[in-house]
């Protein structure tokens, strides 16, 4: 493929004390590509995502955005982070700001855009996630799914080149998961470069261009979603996928008994 590499890591190592969380990660994300990171909990997916925008310092190796290194304490940190949007698992809206206030805060204060300009774009983005009517509400008045959609709109306001999603539906009630995932699928369709950590396997299969399977801080398997979900190569990935099919087996058995 001729497309350019937008986000890249080189031999990334991250340790907490004696525990090695990431053990030599080489990741390449092409422009417009949607990469989904899968793996058992504690495998380092979230840590990897946090390293990608400098929320975690790395012990060795480097992260490159458009070929430029990101360092956790570098002068260019603010610049770099504006190019990498991130949405977190817990609802991270600013509780002392209205929905509109949340969305325009950083564009006005960090990018020094005019209020009118920021509000005009906020209208477009909030309409896209179906929450323009809620612009005057406070975050605590919104459901979890609505909050996550606002968080996505807020990140998009900065015109990021890459979006990172860290288990954004993990804390949501099941019926709210869909509305958030739909927004992400739409975003992927528009060509946004995305790196997603999720436990929604059906969603991963639908949205991913490529699946990366992590275990114990290393990439164990890299595959297209079709291949990964139908014919995983590694033993570890097979075992991992089995944990998601267990429920269905149980129901089938039950229905036979009845």
């Amino acid at each position, binding site marked *: 493929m001729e497309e350019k590499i937008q986000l890249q890591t080189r031999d990334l190592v991250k340790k907490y004390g004696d525990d090695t969380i990431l053990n030599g990660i080489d990741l390449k994300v092409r422009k417009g590509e949607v990469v989904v990171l899968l793996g058992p909990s504690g495998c380092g997916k979230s840590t990897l995502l946090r390293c990608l925008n400098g929320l975690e310092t790395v012990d060795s190796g480097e992260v490159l955005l458009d070929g430029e290194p990101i360092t956790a304490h570098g002068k260019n940190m603010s610049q770099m982070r504006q190019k990498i949007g991130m949405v977190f698992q817990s609802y991270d809206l600013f509780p002392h700001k209205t929905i509109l206030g949340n969305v325009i805060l950083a564009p006005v204060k*960090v990018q020094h855009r005019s209020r009118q300009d920021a509000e005009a774009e906020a209208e477009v983005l909030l309409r896209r996630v179906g929450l323009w009517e809620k612009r005057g509400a406070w975050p605590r008045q919104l459901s979890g799914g609505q909050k996550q959609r606002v968080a996505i709109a807020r990140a998009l306001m900065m015109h990021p080149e890459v979006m990172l999603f860290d288990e954004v539906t993990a804390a949501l009630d099941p019926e709210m998961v869909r509305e958030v995932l739909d927004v992400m699928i739409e975003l992927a369709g528009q060509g946004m470069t995305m790196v997603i950590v999720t436990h929604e396997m059906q969603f991963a299969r639908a949205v991913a261009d490529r699946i990366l399977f992590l275990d114990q801080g290393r990439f164990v398997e890299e595959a297209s979603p079709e291949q990964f979900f139908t014919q995983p190569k590694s033993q570890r990935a097979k075992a991992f996928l089995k944990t998601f099919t267990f429920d269905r087996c149980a129901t089938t058995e039950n229905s036979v008994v009845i």
Partner: protein
Amino acid sequence: MDFSFVQNYLPMYAQAALLTVRIGCFGILAAVLVGIICSMILYFKIPVLQAVATVYIELSRNTPLLVQLFFLYFGLPKIGVRISAEGCAVIGLAFLGGSYMTEAFRSGLESIDRIQTESAGSLGMNAGQTMRYVIFPQALAISVPALVANVIFLIKETSVVSAIALADLMYVAKDLIGLYYQTKEALIMLVAFYLILLLPVSVIGTLVERRLRYAGFGA
């Protein structure tokens, strides 16, 4: 009840109340400033300064204001530092109040989830912007009840400044009792003046707390 006494000495009380307000305002303003600085030092865990702030807080909280005032007013001149009685009172109040204000701000700051800092950072905000636009407004809203309590506490503490010969409300009341033995009137006026000073603070404080809560702050 001798109303002519009340009428005669009302101006004296008013004068004294003004002194109490003056010392209270400057002292509390300085205490808030000390509190903001120390709470930042503790929040960001700035080396060396953190130890200095901790020592200061323990020293300030565990010694009575009266002792602090005696140190400032009678002790410092022995090493050649002379400060006016009112200056001593303001400094003393700031010294005592600073630690209480620090604790109020610090508890507010520490109640803000780390994710707030991280999400502000992920939007490209630097540490200063994150503090100013995201952390501090939320922390302040949470600190307000403690701040109001501290303000009332500190205004009441000004009643010990009579010990360094400042003619505050307490001093005037004691003086009048000593001179004329009109204990009842003098004490009723003393209580009335403290209530006049403090009730508005208390009411406004409650209103501010309620407003912040209904605005969705800290929810």
